[in-house]
């Protein structure tokens, strides 16, 4: 208020001769007016505080306005009324200001807080609002992921066993990427040839870019037709408002379209693109929307000044995956050679393995035919041959049999348990080992029995009969009926003949008289026959020459004389070709007379050499 006082002073101090106005009067009127507005002023300038006339004048002049003002003041000062008043016009004010760019930023923080608190209070509202928008997007995204997985799986399966597949497997191993990734890299050959950005509302072309070598019809016509087809599909089927035709395929050309709020991006792709390309296209579309939302919304067919959008779309057109350049350097000899060597090695190995198997099978079937061998288990494992079973100790040795085949014995693991077999062959072997038959006896299997044939001593025969009786039940019979006792037959006849002979001597003579030569010759012949026969029968014989004397003369002399006579005969027989080892000598003196010496004739009979044949088993 100090300013007002200063203005008043300044008015009073002004020169009174400037004009014809009564300054003092005017000043006091103004002062009064001022005081009526601000009563505190009256003290400073000495004017009565209130002039009732002035008040009256004011009521007369501004009565209506004062009433309005006071009502307004009431409204403004009462928060409830003021709020009600603003509320009545708020929507109108905002609607009017919506063209003003400053409104958005001003309201944003408050709206943000309001939204947050609303969501905190009841998230359901937001979910209900977003559900119809988000669910199709999620479904689409999951669908693409599944498609991508199948695509990857398909390609992986298709190429997993080919020569190329092996090469890619090697590449995957080398680069540390997954095999599927490498397969996709090589098989998904594609090129984005055209990209159309189409205004959704009018179907008009906003921007079109094409790869250098790509050709197409008038892009404006194409884009409108695409929009028309999208409309057609949307109208004709399903009727889902926010979704359109995602993909179209014609031979190796594919049309992939992504819908934005104001524009649709359609990419024309030649080849086999990965599903992930959808995402790339979508990213470009949303970037364009984010940067030029207003332009897209209000697009009216004027494409000038959209160079930046064109640049964004050029990124899409640059997307491609080229086929790997196959360098044609003729036939890959090195690869073929390596493959050949590998194949040959594999072939040799396979052949050997097959041949081994054949040999083994042959060996096993041979083993099975052998008596005393029972095979319970046969196997091949890690290049080793396994065989297990039962084996009679008298059966053929499986290892010896193995030598006949081409199998390395070191590769064979055999596990045999011992048992006693009852096969006739085994029983034969067992009897042979046990009885050790003489050469004159043959043992053989005939008609399921063990049959012995030939000649044997009574002792051996007794042993053999005992062994036959001890064979277990179920064993083949041991037939000894074909074995004759050596004592029956020519041997005994011959020995009887020899034993009936004697060589006679003259009195006191150690040598036989010449008249005995014929007898000696006869005996020598018979002894040789005996030796031959015994040998053929496998029996041992021994012929004892016993010298005798008569009882005349001294006893000791007679004993020496009788021994000398036996020695002399042995020498004479030896001279006649008889094996001296066959002959044994002894002197009996006069102790074993043939006749009682009652006469010279009887004494002459007792002076002799007699023969005793002994037959026994060969040692």
């Amino acid at each position: 208020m100090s300013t007002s006082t200063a203005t008043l002073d300044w008015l009073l101090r002004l020169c009174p001769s400037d004009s014809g106005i009564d300054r003092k009067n005017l000043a006091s009127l103004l002062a009064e007016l001022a005081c009526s507005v601000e009563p505190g002023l009256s003290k400073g300038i000495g004017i009565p505080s209130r002039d009732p006339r002035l008040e009256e004048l004011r009521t007369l002049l501004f009565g209506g306005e004062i009433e309005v003002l006071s009502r307004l003041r009431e409204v403004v000062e009462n928060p409830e009324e003021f709020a009600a008043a603003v509320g009545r016009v708020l929507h109108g004010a905002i609607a009017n200001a919506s063209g003003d760019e400053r409104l958005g930023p001003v309201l944003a923080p408050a709206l943000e807080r309001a939204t947050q608190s609303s969501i905190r209070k009841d998230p359901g509202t937001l979910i209900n609002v977003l559900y119809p928008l988000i669910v199709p997007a999620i479904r689409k995204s999951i669908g693409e992921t599944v498609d991508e997985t199948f695509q990857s799986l398909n390609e992986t399966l298709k190429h997993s066993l080919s020569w190329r597949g092996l090469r890619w497997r090697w590449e995957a191993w080398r680069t540390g990427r997954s095999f599927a990734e490498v397969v996709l890299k090589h098989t998904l050959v594609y090129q984005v040839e055209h990209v159309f950005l189409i205004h959704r509302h009018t179907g008009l072309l906003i921007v079109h870019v094409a790869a250098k070598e790509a050709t197409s019809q008038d892009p404006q016509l194409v884009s409108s037709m695409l929009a028309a087809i999208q409309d057609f599909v949307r109208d004709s089927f399903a009727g889902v408002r926010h979704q359109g035709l995602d993909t179209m395929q014609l031979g190796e050309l594919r049309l992939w379209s992504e819908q934005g709020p104001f524009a649709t991006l359609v990419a024309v792709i030649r080849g086999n693109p990965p599903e992930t390309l959808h995402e790339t296209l979508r990213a470009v579309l949303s970037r364009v929307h984010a940067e030029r939302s207003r332009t897209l919304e209000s697009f009216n067919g004027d494409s000038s000044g959209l160079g930046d959008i064109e640049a964004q779309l050029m990124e899409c057109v640059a997307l491609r995956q080229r086929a790997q350049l196959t360098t044609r350097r003729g036939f890959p000899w090195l690869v073929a050679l390596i493959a050949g060597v590998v194949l040959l090695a594999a072939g040799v190995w396979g052949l050997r393995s097959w041949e081994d198997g054949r040999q083994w099978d042959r060996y096993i079937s041979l083993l099975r035919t052998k008596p005393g061998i029972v095979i319970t288990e046969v196997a091949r494992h890690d290049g080793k041959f396994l065989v297990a079973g039962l084996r009679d100790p008298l059966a053929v040795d499986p290892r010896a049999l193995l030598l006949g085949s081409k199998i390395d014995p070191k590769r064979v693991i055999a596990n045999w348990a011992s048992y006693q077999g009852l096969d006739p062959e085994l029983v034969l072997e067992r009897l042979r080992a046990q009885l050790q038959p003489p050469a004159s006896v043959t043992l053989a299997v005939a008609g399921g029995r063990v049959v012995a044939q030939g000649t044997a001593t009574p002792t051996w025969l007794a042993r053999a009969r005992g062994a036959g009786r001890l064979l277990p039940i179920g064993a083949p019979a041991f037939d000894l009926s074909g074995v004759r006792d050596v004592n029956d037959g020519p041997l005994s006849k011959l020995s009887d003949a020899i034993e009936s002979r004697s060589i006679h001597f003259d009195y006191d003579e150690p040598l036989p008289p010449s008249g005995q030569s014929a007898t000696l010759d006869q005996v020598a012949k018979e002894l040789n026959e005996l030796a031959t026969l015994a040998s053929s029968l496998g029996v041992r014989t021994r012929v004892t020459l016993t010298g005798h004397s008569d009882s005349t003369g001294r006893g000791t002399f007679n004993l020496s004389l009788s021994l000398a006579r036996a020695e002399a005969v042995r020498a004479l027989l030896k001279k006649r070709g008889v094996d001296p080892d066959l002959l044994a000598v002894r002197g009996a003196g006069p102790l074993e007379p043939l006749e009682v010496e009652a006469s010279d004739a009887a004494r002459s009979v007792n002076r002799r050499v007699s023969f005793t044949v002994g037959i026994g088993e060969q040692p």
Partner: protein
Amino acid sequence: MIDTVQRKICMLGGFSVGKTSLVKRYVESIFSDSYLTTVGVKIDKKVEQLPDRVVSLVLWDLAGEDDIGSLRMSYLRGSAGYVLVADRTRRSTLQMALSLRERVEADYGPMPFVLLMNKSDLKEQWAIDDAELEDLRHRGWWVRASSARTGEGVEDAFKDLAVRVTR
């Protein structure tokens, strides 16, 4: 550099009013007529050279049918204007054009259009005389007598429309 702008224009008309013949002779076309029977629309283009700019009229030729209910109205979305075609020798086609116009205005509001009275070269077969056309003009309509055979009125009609939709 002269600006090039595009505008979406729909071609509407009853059955066999000669719409397709107009399109065949006077506009650029890459799609076959079979689109009309399959998708129900065929896109063609008419480029008009105006003094200050070049206008590409992208023409959505909607399948002409006598049953107005079967018209796919969604194809009209975003149109800047439209061309109504009627056969001057058949009164019913004018009625059809009038009801088509009503239908369009009801759904999309008023927008520039031109009414082509086609087959105007067949003067002796006229079912609608000049006076009647004059009446329509008095209502503020842009009406032109046209002939796909002689080319009468066709170029002018497209040029008029190009000017009006780029104003």
